[in-house]
């Protein structure tokens, strides 16, 4: 139950009913790492949310592959993005599910990815992402919608950044959202 009606500062409560928004797994990197995998994802939720925060050791594209599927023709993405002066939109093919193209090797990026109806075996899977990276004078903000052309339930996520690594202290947290 939403609790937006709470009016007294300091009152505690839950945005979701107990156990409706669960932490599945979290990884914080101890050293630079190229690939992060969340496996054995249970199918007991309705949606997944992946929250990423970190620094990339070179600017490049963050992708999410499902169930170890590296056939890039199975993925497609569209995005709208702003770079502080210009807005633009595009379509990306030939790589796994896109979430962002990092812009800085010193300032952290953030990305919140919703993976909808991930366990449904009757439809292709869609992820949407809000991502950004500001470096006090440069950076981008973007919204991606990505499609995985597969009806299998998603049981694993493999997060990569093309041709580089995520720096130490980058964190990746996966949550499950239940239906009523």
């Amino acid at each position, binding site marked *: 139950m939403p609790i937006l009606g709470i009016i007294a500062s300091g009152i505690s409560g839950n945005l979701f009913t107990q156990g409706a928004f669960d932490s599945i797994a979290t990884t914080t990197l101890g050293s630079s790492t190229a690939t992060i995998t969340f496996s054995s994802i249970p199918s007991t939720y309705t949606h997944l949310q992946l929250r990423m925060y970190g620094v990339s050791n070179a600017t490049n594209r963050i992708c999410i592959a499902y169930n170890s599927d590296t056939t890039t023709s199975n993925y497609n993405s569209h995005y709208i993005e702003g770079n502080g002066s210009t807005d633009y939109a595009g379509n990306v093919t030939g790589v796994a599910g896109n979430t962002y193209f990092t812009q800085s090797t010193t300032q952290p990026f953030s990305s919140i990815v919703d993976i909808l109806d991930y366990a449904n075996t009757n439809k292709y899977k869609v992820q949407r992402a809000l991502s950004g990276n*500001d470096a*006090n004078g440069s950076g981008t903000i973007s919204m991606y919608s990505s499609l995985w052309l597969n009806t299998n339930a998603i049981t694993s996520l493999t997060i990569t950044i093309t041709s580089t690594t995520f720096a130490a202290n980058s964190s990746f947290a996966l949550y499950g959202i239940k239906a009523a």
Partner: protein
Amino acid sequence: MAKDNTYQAIATTTATGSTTSVTLSSIPGTYTDLVLILQGGPGSSGNSLYVQINSDTGSNYSTTDIWGDGTNAESGRTTSATFIRILGRGIGASNNLSNSSVTSFMNYSNTTTHKTLLNRSNPASAGATATVGLWRSTSAITSLTVTSESGNLISGSTFTLYGIKAA
């Protein structure tokens, strides 16, 4: 796997119309991310609400944003600013309660890296905005102050802060 209370309300406050800002303080460091949800507006139409962290009024903030007003889409930037707008940067908000904003403060308690936020805001009848913000500090975030850019916060504006726990 943690099952209980992953997404918790930390505090809620409602503006009375007599102040320009509200502060959510004594934020515990026990979560991974913070989420601030507000519905309300500035005292003067066409302005925004902005956030400052840990009472820092220095030029330590910057943003990159994109917005659309129903006709045009544009992108803008602030550098070495003294705050981060979290309600309709570029298009402004109406001085009523029909504006909404959701801001995630990512990895807010780590003391190694600078802090970023992701914001989506919807000023009533004006458009939609997405913003990434940077606070160039390695301090853990312990307080957030939200201020009306012009006039007092509209009475009835609500500000609710949530914490999301990791596994």
